[in-house]
């Protein structure tokens, strides 16, 4: 099998594939079990959001080095409906799907850097980085 660092999210099982890939990448980057769990969970949330709200999209997981810092960069892209009220989405407990409403703010807390670019009707790109300390 060729080396794949990106997973197309179309079905619920692609979420499993994405976080499996994330776990492997996290492990080989040198993260401990707690951070591995954090990264895998964050990927799971991002992938599920793609599946639930955009229908399809892509999760990319890339090891990065900036200066002396090593980390894992996760990019979630979709061409879905976009997020109309980002502030609301980032509030704990806000949900439109009947879930817990902890996903997006949770991912932000699980990761070190977190950025959302979104435009209604165009799509959403979320980048999140975890640094190896």
């Amino acid at each position, binding site marked *: 099998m*060729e080396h794949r660092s990106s997973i197309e999210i179309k079905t*619920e*099982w692609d*979420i*499993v594939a994405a*976080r499996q890939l994330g*776990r492997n990448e996290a492990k080989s980057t040198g993260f401990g*079990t*707690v951070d*591995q*769990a*954090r990264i*895998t*969970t964050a990927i*799971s*949330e991002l992938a*599920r959001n793609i599946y639930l709200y955009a229908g399809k999209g892509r999760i990319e997981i890339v090891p990065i080095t900036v200066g002396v810092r090593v980390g894992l960069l996760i990019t979630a892209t979709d061409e879905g409906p976009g997020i109309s009220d980002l502030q609301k989405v980032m509030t*704990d407990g806000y949900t439109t799907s009947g*879930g*817990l*409403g*902890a*996903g997006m*703010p*949770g991912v932000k*807390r*699980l990761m070190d850097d977190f950025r959302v670019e979104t435009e209604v009707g165009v799509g959403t790109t979320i980048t999140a980085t975890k640094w190896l300390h």
Partner: protein
Amino acid sequence: MNEVMRKGIVENIDTITTRWVEEMKENADERFLELMPAPVVATTSREFTELMTSNLTYRDTVDKARLDEFTEKIIHFGWSIKFINRAIDTFSSVVYNLFFETGILQESNLREGINIFSNWINPLRESIIEEYSTKWERTDILQKIALQELSASLIPVFDKISVMPLVGTIDTERAKLIMENLLEGVVKQRAEVVLLDITGVPVVDTMVAHHIIQAADAVRLVGAKCMLVGIRPEIAQTIVTLGINLTDFSTTSTLRRGMQKALEMTGRTIVEEEM
């Protein structure tokens, strides 16, 4: 013409096989031809070319048994369907070129030749791909059934106490199954305390947590208590960071401690007997 072509292939089968292997090595982006030991490559290629020529003699009938055996084998090798398709394409172009070299095909009989060619290769391609996808579909179904069998059974351990060990990924479908089995089991087993063991769940994200909370609420409605056990340290940390509220739950790190607690809740304790 058929007979001439067949003879042409049989006589040149070694050349065809060698050229096919060479071209496949050059064009294929997949590495398994390199990974496969040379003798295996040789026999498999040989079998492939033999299979490819098997229906040329008796037109329109593909040797089912041989086809079956061969697909079984290539699936085992991990050949992808794309690779197989390319293998067939490469094979036909090798044979086509060889026919021109040997003069079996010429400008004059090109039309007839191409006709025979497509009548020969296309059904073969269809049967190979069909056979291949049927095999995969079967594997897929079997795995789904196997996964379902692994899912969520409620085990009565003591009077009034039942345990449900959860192993593996929880998706929407499984979550539904868990809920059903849980509620049905609680009523049937007259359980008062149910222990949900998540030791074997690799990731607890908000969706999994949501399903667990819902299951616990439902259990409460039928008059029993739900306890979450087997929370690994790293899972505990992620749950806290995610901001999931599990304070309504009684939780423990291991099934053993959960069991002790459950016995206490039902007014019993484990007493060591002096021998």
